[in-house]
């Protein structure tokens, strides 16, 4: 992917990435002649595609870790047997050194998914609904939880009850 500043007829350069929102990443490019900036938005599928290819916007100076895609992206994986070499710690190091901003941005994008309860505007779960959520197999629970919350938001529910779960059930393969 290349970007051209039409006024200067000059190739634009990667400048920065902004914090993602709802799985979407924004990359900023700048014209080295006139310093005009443009923003490129990747939708969640495009962000995921880039992540699936294990490619990084803005380039990567870091050494790839063994099986970093499988270890960091497999949701149904065993616990990493070597936490001292976890992909997360590698990501933090690269963020601090500023070598690869996109790595941390991508990681943040998916943190949204794994910790949806931290969203301030999310609907609240009743104890009954949480109890039912616990009965969903662990490996599909995060996906089911996110889907139910998304359904609740889309349908104007501020609280997730058993009734809301029943209504959302038709959208998911898992029974709860």
């Amino acid at each position, binding site marked *: *992917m290349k970007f051209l500043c*039409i006024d200067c007829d000059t*190739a634009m*350069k990667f400048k920065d990435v902004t914090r993602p929102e709802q799985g979407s990443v924004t990359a900023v490019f700048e014209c080295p002649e006139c310093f005009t900036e443009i923003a490129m938005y990747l939708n*969640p599928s495009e962000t995921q595609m880039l992540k*699936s290819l294990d490619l990084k916007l803005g380039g990567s100076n870091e050494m790839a870790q063994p099986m970093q895609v499988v270890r960091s992206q*497999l949701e149904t994986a065993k616990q990493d*047997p070597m936490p001292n070499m976890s992909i997360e710690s590698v990501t933090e190091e690269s963020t601090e050194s500023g070598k690869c901003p996109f790595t941390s941005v991508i990681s943040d994008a*998916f943190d949204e998914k794994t910790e949806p309860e931290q969203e301030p505007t999310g609907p609240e779960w009743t104890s009954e609904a949480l109890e039912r959520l616990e009965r969903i197999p662990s*490996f599909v629970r995060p996906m089911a939880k996110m889907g139910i919350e998304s359904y609740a938001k889309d349908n104007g529910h501020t609280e997730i009850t058993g009734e809301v779960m029943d209504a959302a059930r038709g959208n998911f393969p898992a029974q709860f």
Partner: protein
Amino acid sequence: MKSYKELPDDAGSNIVGQVAAQSDRISKRLASVQNTVAIMSGKGGVGKSAITANIATALTQMGCAVGIVDADINGPSIAKMMGVRNATLEYTSSGVKPATSSLGTKIISMDLLLSEDDAPVLWNAHSQKDAFTWRSTMEVSALREFIGDTEWEELDYLLLDLPPGSDRLPNVVELIPNLGGVVVITIPSEVSHLIVKKSITMARDILKVPIVGVVENMAFYECRHCGEHEPLFAIEDDIDKTLHSRTLGEIPFDPKLSRCSDNGTPYVHEFPDTPASYAITDIAEKIQEFFMT
């Protein structure tokens, strides 16, 4: 206005360089592997993984250093068949140490990474909606890491057990441009031959990968009382004429082979003096001959 080709680079991401680095990682890893062999069928249910496990074991028993990549990301079975499901993978700074069978065959499989028996392969994503747009790409990345990040060390043969279908082989050839050859597994059924023909065409005519040969599994069964051979399937199809490929051998049906797969004890090691083990060992010898000439 400048055209795409006139712009010097991709704004600094160097995507081409990143992809080249991924390929380079595989090349360096496979530098110590003598021969890479894809085992494919096209058709599911022909016993491809069981035959892969036993060919690998037969080669190991002949003194070869052998590794298996379970390339069936969503339906991994090699770890169970080789008795290493409970192995813990060890990560090092330079790679991942594979599981090793009791006879010394090295194995990497998605099954070794999944948390529970009933856990499917589910990838972390903001949403699973429209996952068809990226799931196959994620699977190829996983396969790339299985091949390139496993510490195979010196191997005579690295076998890749492919999932059913002819679509995974092009991915493998992208990852391993100098793939040594393809062994095709079929059963004596017109339906299987029909599908397998497509896989052979894909390998030989489109991807230009050498066909080591065709293995006919469950070719017949031998009466344990009188030793007579009886066909398991009613077929008048001539495999040599239909598939236009060299037949490496015919493996008779033996229920013990399935039981050994379930138990994680390779059949050729458990029951070496049976017609099926003789056939598998003979096939392994022919594979060796293919790569030695």
